[in-house]
């Protein structure tokens, strides 16, 4: 598409500044059930988001239909959108940053790997899971998916940015039966280099997780010293970082209001955003065209910055932190590659001092169980008791409740089991002084 024509046409219709982003995706996915390929999907999608300024007001529009009428549709949509806006601030788009930290994260070898090899890989996982233990009753699914994304950004100031990326993920779930008890376990591996994937370790991880769940009981309700496994802590920290959104703070919807440069967590807590890390979550520009930057969010327990786009930064008399991201019909706040620093201690080191405690390995229902404004949460959980510094009986159908700030204040230590999760958070297991566990 000839975007210069779009900018010219937009100007003639009264859109003084404009921006257009196009995203093209290609994907392949397949899954096995009972040694047969039961699903095979391929796709090619495209979408366009455009925005602009009309009489100082911001307007936006998006479509997946790209043809001769697309520019007219987008321009009409931007004008209608801007005309209804009652925001008092004068809108303006961004000419561009001085410097961008572009890196090549696209791995051509992924797409070039023969499909037979990918199919063989998921067969190997399915066979491995069935053979893992006689308690394995069913391998619910083994799936492979790969995706290529090309993102392009253009604006009427002449800024042109492009990023091409690709990734794959492999997921598997198995269930087991012992008497009337049914348990299941699953895992997902995400990356863009198939040579980094170890199917044997993946199978063992799911199998071990499944077998350990049998015989789960409810503990007595109460407050316990609690270890949160890295995956669980990742989900919770994700909500904490979303509360550092300057937009939420300015709208008085965040528990971090007025907390900038104050101690909000244990001094052991260091949280950074590193969008420029070369991995599948890498991004070198945001949705306003601002250059992405690595930054400390919490350092030594002190909140160092909120996450800003250009509009919220202007309100606070500061500059954008490169966190502008589409949120519905406006550019809100987004983030990626969050890193919570771990320690040199092993998992055994951190549970050793716990006489009676709880190790939480899975949670469910946080999406509705979290009050993101107050940081209060309550959700379903499972894991193990810790007795005399060692893992003991499995726990099932318990609840984990707490408050994000209180949890961060109560952190005693981390271990060294760092994991990059699907939520784009890299963190270790964490020891929290006490948390509320609901059971019998």
């Amino acid at each position, binding site marked *: 598409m000839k975007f210069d024509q779009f900018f010219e046409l937009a100007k003639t219709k009264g859109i003084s500044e404009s921006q257009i982003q196009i995203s093209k995706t290609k994907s392949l996915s397949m899954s096995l*059930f009972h040694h*047969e*390929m*039961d*699903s*095979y*999907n*391929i796709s*090619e*999608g495209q*979408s366009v988001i455009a925005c602009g300024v009309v009489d100082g007001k911001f*307007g*936006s529009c*998006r*479509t*997946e*239909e790209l043809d001769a009428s697309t520019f007219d*549709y987008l321009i009409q*949509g931007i004008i*209608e*959108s801007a005309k209804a*806006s*009652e*925001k*008092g601030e004068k809108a303006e788009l961004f000419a561009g940053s001085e410097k961008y930290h572009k890196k090549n994260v696209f791995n051509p070898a992924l797409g070039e790997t023969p499909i037979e090899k990918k199919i063989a890989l998921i067969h190997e996982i399915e066979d491995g899971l069935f053979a893992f233990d006689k308690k394995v009753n*069913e391998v*619910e699914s083994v799936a492979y998916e790969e995706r290529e994304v090309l993102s392009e950004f253009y604006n009427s100031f002449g800024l042109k940015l492009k990023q091409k990326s690709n990734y794959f993920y492999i997921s598997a*779930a198995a*269930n087991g039966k012992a008497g009337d008890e*049914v*348990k*299941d376990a699953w895992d997902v591996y995400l990356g863009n280099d198939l040579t980094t994937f170890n199917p044997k370790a993946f199978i063992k991880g799911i199998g071990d997780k499944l077998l350990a769940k049998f015989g789960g009981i409810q503990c007595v*309700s109460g407050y316990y010293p609690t270890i949160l496994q890295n995956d669980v802590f990742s989900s919770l920290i994700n909500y904490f970082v979303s509360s550092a959104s300057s937009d939420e703070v300015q*709208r*008085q*919807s*965040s528990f971090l209001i007025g907390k900038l440069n104050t101690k909000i967590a244990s001094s052991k807590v260091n949280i950074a955003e590193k969008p420029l890390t070369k991995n599948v979550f890498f991004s070198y520009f945001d949705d306003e065209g601002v250059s992405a930057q690595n930054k400390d969010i919490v350092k030594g327990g002190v909140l160092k910055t909120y996450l800003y786009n250009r509009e919220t930064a202007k309100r606070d008399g500061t500059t954008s932190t490169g966190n502008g991201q589409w949120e*519905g019909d*406006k550019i809100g706040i987004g983030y990626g590659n969050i890193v919570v620093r771990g320690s040199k201690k092993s998992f055994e080191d951190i549970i050793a001092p716990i006489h009676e405690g709880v190790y939480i390995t899975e949670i*469910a*229902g946080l*999406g*509705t169980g979290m*009050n993101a*404004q*107050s940081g*209060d949460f*309550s*959700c*379903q959980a499972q894991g193990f008791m810790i007795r005399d510094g060692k893992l003991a009986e499995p726990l099932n*159908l*318990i*609840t*984990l*409740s707490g408050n994000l700030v209180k949890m961060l204040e109560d952190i005693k230590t981390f271990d060294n089991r760092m994991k990059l999760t699907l939520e784009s958070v890299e963190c270790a297991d964490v020891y929290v002084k006490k948390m*509320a*566990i*609901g*059971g*019998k």
Partner: protein
Amino acid sequence: MISKALALKVLNEALATGGDYAEIYLEQNDSQAVTLENGKVETNGNRRGFGAGIRILNGLKSVYGYTSVLSAKSLITLAHDLAASYTGIRQITVKSIAKQTVKVINPIEDHLNDVPVAEKITLLKKCYAITAAVDKRLVRIQNIFSNYRKNIEIFSAEGPEGKQFENSEERGRLVMVAAAAENGKIETYFEGPGRFAGWHWFKDVLDWKAKAKECGEKAIMMMGAKECPSGRYPVVIANGWGGVIFHEACGHSLEATATAKHLSVFSDSIGQVIANPIVSAYDDGTMPNEWGSNNIDSEGHVTQKNQLIRDGVCVGFLVDKFNGRRLKMEANGASRRQNYKYEPTSRMSNTYIASGKDKPEDIIKDTPLGIYVTNFGGGSVNPTTGEFNFSASEAYIIRDGKVCEPVRGCTLIGSGKEVLMNIDRAADDVDLGQGMCGSVSGSIPVNVGQPTIRIKEITVGGRGGKLE
């Protein structure tokens, strides 16, 4: 969106390698949303979703692909690439396509997409004013009206004569969110009535004044709520949106998506007692103009009223075409998808527990100590184990048969099998509530529903210690 001649070519290309069923699903979705923040228009957006999905079944195998380019070349290439994953020889040549009559059970006269945005803004401002007047501690009030019109065309064939279906879906939702803040404490409350209906319903039938007032009042009330106790207690769940407990605890486990592969706790349950005999439950996609209703499903089947449980006995599943093959059951109008990017599968529409014989006030009166949940944020389930969780957004302590102080941070967890047997009271006040359900074929609008019920014992999670 495409000609019959092109559809014929695409179907035949799809069936060239032995497929026994091929389907083209085409969609244009025009959506609008206007958002007010504290009474002022923040955004007003239009967007268009556009594309096609092609599916080919071959026995118990399925291949699916989609594209947002609807040219002949693009569609035929996609059909060809998908067909290449089968290695058989052609079994079916489609010779003709006959247009099917689709009975409109959700009539709309005043289309939401035609309503001027100024009129929607006027309604939203009135809602805002009512909520804002409740209390000065309401620091953030969001009012949103969103609507869409989705035009769908399906071409399918499993023999020489193909079928063509045309359908329109049109829904609107009026969302209100109020946040109250004081001394560092923040509480929010959400109201989101929605319907497959026109503007008249939202403007003149829906009691938006009461909803707007209640939204503000509940946010303020929850500021004063104490932490919910934890332990195992009797729980009374109010009618309407309380039905999310049945949706999660049981409904998902009765979808063929889970039962066909024996991945559900209820896989072999037809004819068996799975609930207390006072429980009967339905999934009904035919309720005129309801949020989860439709004229036809995503495969072209006419929607149905499907009974799932009769007097505690499991009597049916929700079945789509593909999973029906494993189950050896006919599809029953329950195949749904968010849009063309998703392969359709069995999903709920308007799912509810039928009315019982009790009066809601008697159920409260007969509960000496317990929890009364009147609203949920939502929940989730693992269909394999049947274990579920729900978060209450509004709950109270019941003491000596009376509703007492509100509590916050309340989570209910349990297993579907256990909770269905533990429903020991059901009132005569069945009602529905609107929500969005996320699962393998995307996020779709669903109604959940129930009368006031009591679960005689369930695990309650919270930070408030023991209930006394």
